[in-house]
């Protein structure tokens, strides 16, 4: 039986992610309870805002080790994805460390607009069930100032003053830098892929 939980650590996009799942026919439970999270079939870590307060909220909720030890599919969205990495430049923050990646600010240079905000192409770099069906012309909605470079963990990448990771994964931990809940049909498809893992 599928039981999806949204980790409630105070991010403002929790409602939107929950509604997106409802549109797909899945009622996700919003919880910060360790036992409820451990027993879920799928765990989603949403998040908007800055890395340091994001990690602080997880720590205050006693969820750091709970999340690190999960073995079911876990999806981090936007800041949630960045929190799955080792470290973020933003506020010099040590993150959960379940995906071997680091998060850096977009370069400060003329003509490069930061935040990276809007619809951008996501290019599939390696085959994975999470990105199944992603087409060459597909775009997703991004809004962020920090990004994960391309690496072995990259499933899909996007161009903004250079390539960065749009979708990443390491074992059961996955992340999307864009907002699938705000990425129309493409986002719905990727969320559905996640729920079928």
């Amino acid at each position, binding site marked *: 039986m599928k039981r999806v939980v949204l980790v409630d650590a105070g991010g403002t996009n929790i409602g939107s992610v929950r509604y997106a799942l409802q549109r797909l026919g899945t009622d996700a439970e919003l919880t910060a309870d360790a036992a409820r999270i451990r027993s879920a079939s799928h765990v989603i870590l949403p998040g908007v805002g800055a890395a340091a307060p994001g990690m602080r909220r997880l720590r205050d909720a006693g969820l750091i080790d709970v999340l690190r030890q999960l073995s079911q599919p876990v999806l981090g969205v936007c800041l949630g994805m960045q929190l799955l990495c080792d470290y973020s430049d933003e506020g010099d923050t040590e993150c959960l460390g379940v995906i071997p990646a680091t998060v850096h600010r977009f370069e400060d240079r003329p003509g490069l607009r930061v935040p990276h905000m809007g619809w951008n192409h996501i290019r599939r770099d390696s085959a994975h069930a999470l990105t199944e069906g992603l087409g060459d012309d597909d*775009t997703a909605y991004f809004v962020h100032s920090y990004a994960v470079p391309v690496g072995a963990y990259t499933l899909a990448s996007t161009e903004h003053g250079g390539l960065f990771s749009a979708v990443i994964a390491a074992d059961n931990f996955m992340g999307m830098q864009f907002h699938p809940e705000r990425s129309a049909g493409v986002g719905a498809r990727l969320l559905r892929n996640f729920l079928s893992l």
Partner: protein
Amino acid sequence: MLSRRIVPCLDVRDGQVVKGVRFRDHVVVGGIVDLALRYRDEGADELVFYGITASPEGRRVDRDWVERVARQIDIPFCVAGGIRSVDDAREVLHAGADKVSINSPALERPALIGEIADAFGVQCVVVGVDSLRDEDGQWRVRQYTGDPSKTRALRKRTLDWLVEAQSLGAGEIVLNCMGTDGVRRGYDIEQLRAARALCRVPLVASGGAGTAAHFTEVFEQADVDAALAASVFHSGEIAIPALKRELRAQGIEVRV
């Protein structure tokens, strides 16, 4: 490559979408959620809901319709009008809005920009600027434009305010050029170019769209990230799918 965004703006008053010419004489266009869904289906990249009476009367945005929109649509949306504090912003963001846009309250108290940015990140703080050229040739900011009887002309120069707003934490700027707004003769390219030169964050053009060519013009000549319009979309004069085909044919990157 990042697409240029087409953003319909829905002015909300008493639970309905209304339109007006030069911010006056509002008429009802339709229901909030119905129109949001229509624009979403037509390929709008983002929506802005503007509670036009919220700011002058000190009223807050009604959380209820924000949540109804958030449940139904799967593209980003921004709520403007009536956000005067971090608590107001939290309420709207928690109801499901992706961004809040602040205008007159940011002019009353510029620190509000930084407070919201610190609480929720710069990416959800949009600063809306209503601007008009004065007789001395300078563009200056207008406040409380939602109600013509309360509108105030400030001494603050528009371009100075854009720089200040960014340094305080604005993640996006919507520049509404009041001189061209509502008359459909094209965006104020000169002013938007001047703003672009000073904007490191995304810049949204507002005021003056009348034809598809005006959108091409503003993207090509003012290099804005997004173009906002209301009446030409509400009336059906410009259909978003045809507009996007036209932009793409002109070599402008848009989401189709």
